[in-house]
């Protein structure tokens, strides 16, 4: 009985921590499931029930050419749309954080609106526009759409990072005779680069993963999520889990590396 009492006491005094741990478990459980099932050797076509452990899916990662092509398309669209969105978003964030002008708050809210619009509305409205203008659906429409929703994410991420930016550094550069272009490339840009990288990484991930908007505007183009969706009924090949696991751990590594780099830089400048 004393053991039970002790366990109960421990739980009561650490209730919050236990609750937080359970909540985190809830957040991470499906990721664990996706990863685990990349090592499953499914019986039949569907990969929902565990049967036995295998490395096969990882060794035959490129078996289905349609899947490989879909992954390639996703990466290509993510790369192009992230580049455009990051440039546009960085310029906008700079304007919003560093200048005072009329309508600043309204523009701020306007840029936020796409984030507050359900994806299905974004996707559906773009489709009506493209259909009306007779723009054929495909890679181009996907890039236009992905840049649109990513611009706002880049702006919001960067704005948070730029808030602590010391403007006097720029003034000092100007006092020392640097022209605005020199000031930007030598002072401002290196300082805001980590923020830009964070925004770009987020945009890349969102583009890679987007399904709803893509589904509406893809036409015949198959991205990775569209491929997964089309396979739900017939059974998703376990290689899909392997690719998803690969993406996940690649991102985690990138984020961790970026964080470590930034910390080391902060320590050096101290």
């Amino acid at each position, binding site marked *: 009985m004393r053991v039970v009492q002790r366990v109960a006491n421990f739980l009561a005094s650490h209730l*919050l921590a236990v609750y937080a741990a359970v909540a985190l478990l809830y957040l991470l459980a499906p990721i664990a499931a996706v990863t685990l099932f990349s090592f499953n050797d499914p019986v039949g076509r569907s990969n929902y029930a565990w049967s036995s452990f295998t490395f096969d899916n990882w060794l035959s990662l490129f078996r289905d050419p349609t899947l490989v092509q879909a992954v390639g398309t996703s990466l290509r669209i993510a790369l192009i749309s992230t580049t455009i969105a990051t440039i546009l978003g960085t310029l906008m964030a700079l304007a919003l954080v560093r200048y005072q002008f009329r309508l600043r708050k309204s523009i701020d809210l306007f840029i936020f609106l796409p984030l507050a619009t359900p994806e299905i509305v974004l996707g559906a409205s773009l489709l009506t526009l493209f259909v009306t203008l007779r723009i054929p659906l495909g890679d181009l429409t996907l890039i236009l759409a992905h840049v649109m929703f990513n611009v706002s994410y880049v702006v919001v991420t960067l704005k948070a990072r730029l808030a602590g930016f010391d403007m006097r550094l720029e003034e000092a550069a100007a006092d020392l005779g640097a022209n605005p272009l020199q000031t930007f490339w030598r002072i401002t840009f290196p300082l805001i680069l980590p923020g830009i990288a964070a925004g770009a990484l987020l945009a890349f991930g969102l583009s890679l993963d987007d399904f709803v908007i893509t589904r509406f505007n893809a036409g015949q183009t198959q991205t990775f999520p569209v491929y997964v969706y089309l396979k739900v009924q017939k059974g998703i090949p376990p290689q899909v889990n392997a690719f998803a696991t690969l993406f996940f751990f690649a991102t985690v590594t990138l984020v961790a590396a970026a964080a470590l780099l930034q910390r080391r830089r902060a320590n050096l400048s101290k």
Partner: protein
Amino acid sequence: MGLIRRNPAFTPLLLLAPGLLWLAAFYVAPNVQMFASSFWNGTLEGGFSFSLANWTNYPDALIKYQEQYLRSIEYGFVATLLCFAIAFPLAYFIAFKGGRARNVLLFLVVAPFFTSYLLRTIGWRTILGDDSIILGPLKALGVVAPEARILDTPFAVIAGIAYNFIPFMILPIYVSLEKIDRRLLEAAQDLYASGWGSFRRITLPLAIPGVFAGSLLTFIPAIGDFINAELLGNPGTTMIGNVIQRQFLVVRDYPTAAALSFMLMILILAGVALYARLLGTEELTSTAI
């Protein structure tokens, strides 16, 4: 460059212009077009024609799909409550007890965003399945009936929605909790406030903007979602998102679909406007990530 130096008022405008033009072309224009399309009649093959007399598309669509509309609002509401119940203690723990692990914990919170949304949802199929790690042992122990199911029920859909959008709730709450000046809490303690007292009178009121921002940011994608209803539900859990995507992509009844999604848009804009009016825009636009 010369222009910028001579007239600094132009600089923000020039910086903003390309992005704003992009949003005008691919966010505003599509919504205007969708509004116009909701006054169409006709078919994709035969061509659509615009007439204001087609305003009846709205009441027609609303009456026909009121069940799905109400269900979306209901599911969205319950999922948002569920998110709050899970998110607040977690955000509180990270903000106040996280210590050095804070950044790692925050990263774990956003980690689901780095795996495919569809696969995450399908992941729940394996977890909630009929003989899964949850139901399997419960059935073996006789706690639940052998024919009990979680999958393909409203509960699975709501849990799936809550799961998919919970980071939107955690992050704003965390930001508002983290901003609280710890000296206020020390002062309360010095003045003999109990733990609960200082929580109720200091922490909670200061966390309100974050709670509202989080609720809005969770509720919006929740009511527009159709993936969870499709992958985790049954035909009786159809939401408005399922109807919109079917009408657009399968039936191709653009006018009805446009009317349906425009009404969804208005509902959301009203929510954002109300929030901005009551609590200002700063909290909302700065804590989305």
